């Protein structure tokens, strides 16, 4: 049961605003609210899928957990400790426990470094092994991710896209971290290679008892990989549920539209398509109330006035929607 599992990462009221200048001579400044009030926990040993369209803030959230960005407000607790209070040695220790796999296997590897040197670098930085042991540790990881020892001396341009992603994955797991942020790890790969990498990620999860935050825009990939799924829209989590529950019983109109928009390859199984009008709102000038209301076909009077809360709809299924509140008499519809 989910409740029995321990919480590894606890995110509370997290916000990250980036300043933008209105014009290059203008004094007037405004802000892009990339992450706007996210509260979420990641449980030990689970794969939490984070889905959303480009610009919804999912990568920024990943980078905040990595502590590659400092938040505007809010906290992240890792095993009960506030990661933004870390500095010096404590921060370095934290970096050993949390690693990232990037989307683009071409630009995320140093072209002047051999595969072996790239994979061994984290060991060198954290001084966990020395000389001979380091070489063996690198070989063992290369073996685990499906590369051969002979390839340790080769450079990125000598590898295919799938193999490069294996190098990136080896670099992420070599320190045996607890949490891996996988930021679109298969989006740049061909279909047949994508399946190989997804299987590898599952193998490694068992081997190292890893926890994954799996960030993607691909709803069939996240369906295949995740235990729970969080749907992000415009810097906020709009729905969170167990995988099966989310796909069988999506509550938020955005989640429903997203699921229905995925092209289907099952012949003879044509679904009713919900085609959303319009596009993501302008992040510098966001709509008031619920950020989804301009595209929503169920909007009510309250939707452009008040923002709905991410309320529990039972059995760990959360959705931020006034419609659900109205049905259940919660949120702004409390008698």
């Amino acid at each position, binding site marked *: 049961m989910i409740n029995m599992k321990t919480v590894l990462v606890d995110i509370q009221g997290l916000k990250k605003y980036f300043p933008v200048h209105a014009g290059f001579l203008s004094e007037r400044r405004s802000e892009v609210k990339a992450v706007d009030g996210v509260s979420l926990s990641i449980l030990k040993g689970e794969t939490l899928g984070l889905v959303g*369209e480009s610009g919804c803030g999912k990568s920024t959230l990943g980078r905040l957990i990595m502590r590659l960005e400092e938040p505007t407000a809010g906290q992240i607790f890792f095993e009960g400790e506030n990661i933004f209070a870390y500095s010096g040695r404590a921060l370095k220790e934290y970096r050993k426990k949390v690693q990232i796999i990037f989307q683009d296997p071409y630009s995320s590897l140093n072209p002047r470094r051999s595969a072996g040197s790239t994979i061994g670098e984290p060991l060198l930085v954290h001084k966990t092994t020395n000389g001979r042991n380091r070489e063996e540790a690198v070989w063992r990881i290369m073996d685990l991710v499906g590369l051969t020892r002979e390839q340790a001396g080769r450079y990125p341009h000598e590898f295919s896209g799938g193999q490069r992603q294996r190098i990136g994955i080896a670099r992420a797991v070599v320190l045996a971290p607890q949490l891996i942020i996988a930021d679109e790890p298969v989006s740049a790969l061909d279909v047949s290679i994508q399946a190989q990498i997804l299987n590898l990620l599952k193998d490694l999860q068992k081997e190292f008892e890893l926890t994954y935050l799996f960030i993607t825009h691909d709803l069939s990939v996240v369906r295949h990989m995740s235990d729970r799924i969080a749907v992000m829209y415009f810097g906020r989590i709009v729905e969170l549920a167990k995988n099966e529950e989310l796909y069988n019983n999506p509550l938020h109109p955005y989640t429903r539209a997203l699921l229905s928009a995925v092209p289907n390859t*099952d012949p003879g199984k044509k679904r009713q398509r919900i085609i959303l009008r319009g596009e993501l709102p302008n992040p510098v000038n966001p709509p008031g109330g619920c950020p989804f209301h301009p595209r929503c076909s169920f909007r009510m009077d309250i939707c452009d006035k008040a923002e709905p809360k991410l309320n529990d709809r039972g059995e760990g299924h959360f959705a931020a929607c006034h419609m659900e509140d109205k049905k259940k008499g919660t949120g702004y519809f409390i008698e």
Partner: protein
Amino acid sequence: MGRILEIKNLSTHFETEHGVIKAVDDVEIVVDGGDTLGIVGESGCGKTVLALSIMRLVPSPPGRIVSGSIVFNGVDLLRLDNAEMRKVRGKDISMIFQEPMTSLNPVLRIGDQIAEAITLHQGLAASEAMNSAIETLHLVGMPSPETVVRSYPHQLSGGMRQRAMIAMAVSCKPRLMLADEPTTALDVTIQAQIIDLMNRLKEDVGTSIILITHDLGVIAEAAQYVAVMYTGGIVEYSSAENLFSAPLHPYTVGLMESIPKMSASRGQNVYLKVIPGGVPPLYNLPEGCSFQDRCSHVMKICRVEEPLLKEKNPGHKVHCWLYD
């Protein structure tokens, strides 16, 4: 409606330092009026070069169409001179490119870019052409087209840029539209809008479409016929219905199995079936069938001789010794 396009024995080769690369190798396809033919394959399979060959836009050197015929509307495009070909491009055959950001001119207004083809091919005056551009933007569902014609590409979002590209492609009501990964750079909800738009335009304008993509889902939503490409050649050709209900080639079967399904149950112990290995480099293809090293049904003959693309069931062709 009759036959729009008939390609026979088309081969396009590239001279490289590794030797000759057969990017398109002896390809045959037909497109009838009002149909959408999907061409599906992974990167490097030759699907984009096939489209560029039809437009006669293969960069030369190093590329060259070495043999074959591309009969469009009864005329072999490969026999036209450059001036004649220019009259075909953008008027009778148009193309939608994958990257709407890099394929629009950043220093020209959207309206001018759409009107250019209209003035060129229909001989309209500038103001009439601009009105026609606004009309076309209406047709592709662009919000407030009167403002958009005066905008520059960077002022539009990805989905709107792709609509502008499509407007440019349909502005002269072409008989055939080549769409090269038209939705790959877009989010799913925008992708659904664009697929919907292309299906609608096909009905309204009567244009045939060749839809190039790596996404079998997009093919299933939009195409009536499908050609599956692998290392420059077509390995399977059939109606979309038959391809998805009864795929024949081990590569097609493998591709379909390796896609995570939305409906299937999952969990940490459910693994995807995979096609082992990767696509062999085109300059170093093995003797015989190029899929042999990844194929679970490989036989002796596969390593010796290349199979032919043969009709297995009516209208369903496959390039595989298994069915011989």
